[in-house]
């Protein structure tokens, strides 16, 4: 029976890791539903970009306070992984503070740093909570954030608070047990934050202290494992996907939109009828996008990575002036549809059974698509380099080329280009009239 806790821990760990990796695999499969585009070139520049934007958080800087606090939470997240390693080893081996004897005083410093971080994280999330629930920052309240997205955002904040307190409580009770010279509670130095929490537990008997210390320990690690598996359902997936997302981000000018070179030969044929042209490429079976299958894998990864922060919509000229378009909503709807397709696949042994739904119309309306000025403000603003504009353009392409469903004025403009080589009905012969005025 002595090994019961170890076994319990091990099974908990294995089950959560199993679910976690199964979800990761699902995400990978779903992203793979997108069209292939090659983004493997230039790995040096890509690596640098990832280090700068994801690790270095270089695009968070425009709001310094929020940027610093986000940075604290993020560093907290990374560093706490070190501590997690010890917790896991302790759990499996049934030891306590396994690193302490090896690291000696360095260990004390490490835990002290973690505690200070935990404290700073608490301050940061308090700020985030206030911003969301008291100040009620405008960008957190849009049609697309009603319901789950808002709940999700707050859930994470509460999660963080609970985890940090459990960690500090665990250390506080631990220190009391050390003071009482209880066996197996290795002596460490005094921890900077949890020492102030000791009075909360000082009246407890040794047995009760041990009980509480164990409860905090278990709740803490269980909480972390739940958090890990919560990610898949949350905008917090970005803590993992921000890295590949920035690695594979577009490195070319924002102004360069995808050029469909597959139709080049056909266009040549139309321009030079009769001329011998070797048609090497086959045009795509469908122009543009109506559903997630027509988007490319980068766009689908973008959808999973989106933090729902709303920075994009906050600078979108269309959104700012009351139009229905919101680049954040474009990303969220793409993810929602992707998840719907994913469930369909799961239900049908990996085959997609037509559900008579698609991203276009059922999720994203033409009204949204036609409101975009292609200004790139959303792309520029996104802290993890998501490109909502490319999805908008792909869907416009479908509407125009496959459905001739562009707004009437645009059809007129395109007719003019076709007939006179200019978007207005002027004769091309008058191109030089400006010289004579």
């Amino acid at each position, binding site marked *: 029976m002595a090994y019961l806790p170890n076994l319990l821990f091990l099974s908990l760990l294995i089950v959560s890791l199993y679910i976690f990796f199964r979800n990761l695999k699902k995400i990978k499969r779903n992203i793979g539903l997108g069209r292939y585009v090659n983004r493997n070139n230039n790995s040096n520049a890509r690596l640098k970009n990832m280090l700068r934007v994801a690790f270095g958080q270089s695009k968070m800087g425009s709001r310094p306070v929020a940027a610093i606090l986000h940075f604290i939470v993020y560093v907290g997240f990374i560093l706490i992984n070190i501590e997690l390693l010890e917790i896991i080893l302790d759990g499996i081996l049934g030891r306590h503070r396994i690193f302490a004897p090896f690291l000696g005083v360095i260990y004390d410093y490490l835990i002290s740093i973690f505690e200070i971080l935990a404290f700073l994280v608490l301050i940061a999330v308090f700020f985030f909570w206030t911003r969301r629930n008291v100040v009620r920052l405008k960008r957190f309240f849009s049609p697309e954030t009603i319901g789950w997205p808002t709940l999700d955002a707050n859930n994470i904040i509460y999660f963080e608070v609970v985890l940090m307190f459990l960690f500090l409580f665990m250390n506080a009770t631990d220190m009391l047990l050390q003071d009482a010279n209880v066996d197996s509670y290795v002596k460490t130095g005094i921890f900077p934050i949890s020492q102030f929490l000791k009075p909360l537990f000082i009246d407890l008997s040794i047995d009760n202290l041990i009980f509480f210390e164990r409860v905090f320990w278990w709740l803490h690690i269980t909480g972390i494992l739940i958090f890990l598996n919560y990610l898949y359902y949350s905008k917090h997936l970005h803590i993992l996907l921000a890295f590949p997302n920035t690695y594979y981000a577009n490195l070319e000018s924002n*102004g360069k939109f995808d050029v469909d070179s597959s139709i080049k030969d056909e266009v040549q044929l139309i321009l030079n009828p009769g001329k011998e042209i070797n048609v090497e490429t086959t045009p795509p079976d469908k122009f543009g996008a109506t559903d997630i299958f027509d988007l490319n894998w980068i766009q689908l990864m973008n959808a999973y990575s989106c933090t729902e922060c709303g920075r994009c919509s906050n600078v979108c000229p269309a959104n700012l002036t009351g139009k229905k378009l919101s680049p954040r909503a474009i990303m969220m709807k793409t993810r929602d549809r992707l998840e719907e397709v994913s469930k369909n696949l799961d239900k049908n042994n990996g085959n997609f059974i037509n559900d008579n739904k698609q991203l276009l119309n059922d999720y994203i309306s033409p*009204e949204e698509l036609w409101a975009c000025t292609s200004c790139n403000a959303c792309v520029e603003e996104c802290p993890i380099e998501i490109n909502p504009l490319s999805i908008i353009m792909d869907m416009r392409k479908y509407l125009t080329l496959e459905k001739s469903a562009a707004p009437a004025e645009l059809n007129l*403009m395109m007719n003019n*280009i076709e007939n006179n*080589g200019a978007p207005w009905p002027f004769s091309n012969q008058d191109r030089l009239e400006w010289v004579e005025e």
Partner: protein
Amino acid sequence: MKLNVHTLSDLNAEGKKVDIVFWVGCSGSFDDRAKKITRAFVKILNQIKINFAVLGTEETCTGDPAKRAGNEFLFQMQALQNIGNLDKYGVKKIVTTCPHCFNTLKNEYPELGGNYKVFHHTQYLKDLIDQGLLTLSGKKYKGKKITFHDPCYLGRANKVYEAPRELIKKLSGDLVEMKSCKSKALCCGAGGAQMFKDAEKGNKEINIERTEQALEVKPEIIAAACPFCNTMMSDGIKNKEVDRKIKIYDVAELIANAKDP
């Protein structure tokens, strides 16, 4: 003033070569307001005797508005036609006063076989100054409050933020920045083919929003570097009834006017 403009086909017939081709663009050719920008730019080129030519009737729309309206097919038809004409004359360098033409020629033509060195006119003018070929007089705009509206397709799309600003500073203008400028500049509302259609339902026009941002810094002149932005901002100040006090000028016009005796 009589402008001295040649077409590539004329010069080619005479066996003459040019240093650079001026891509006028559809706005610059047909829109009354934009034609003034075209003339202003050519005036500068003429004054310092730049050896340039235009395509004239051999120029057609780059295809930018068609592509942004979703018509990749029409875009490529235009692109291949234009590339054919440019390559026929062995064109290597192009300058244009329109950021949309600039972006399309520079970024989207190479994949279709058109490879040129493309400059926006603010970059080109700045280069001419750096080479000592063009000098600016600071008399006319000395101390005048000028704010610069970044065109999306020059700024965010191609990261050209400084060239137009340096030109304004060289004119001794008092450059004041709007609260959102450079990479954070608000669009005028015309890009992505919006120029050619009414806006979707909303509670404000984008150009009004941008004009209000410009008016906040109390400029005497709003400088633009794109014919579409110019139109949108001109409409904006008319709507706000400040078009008597405040003027919208392209950076090329500022320079051309500064040279007037």
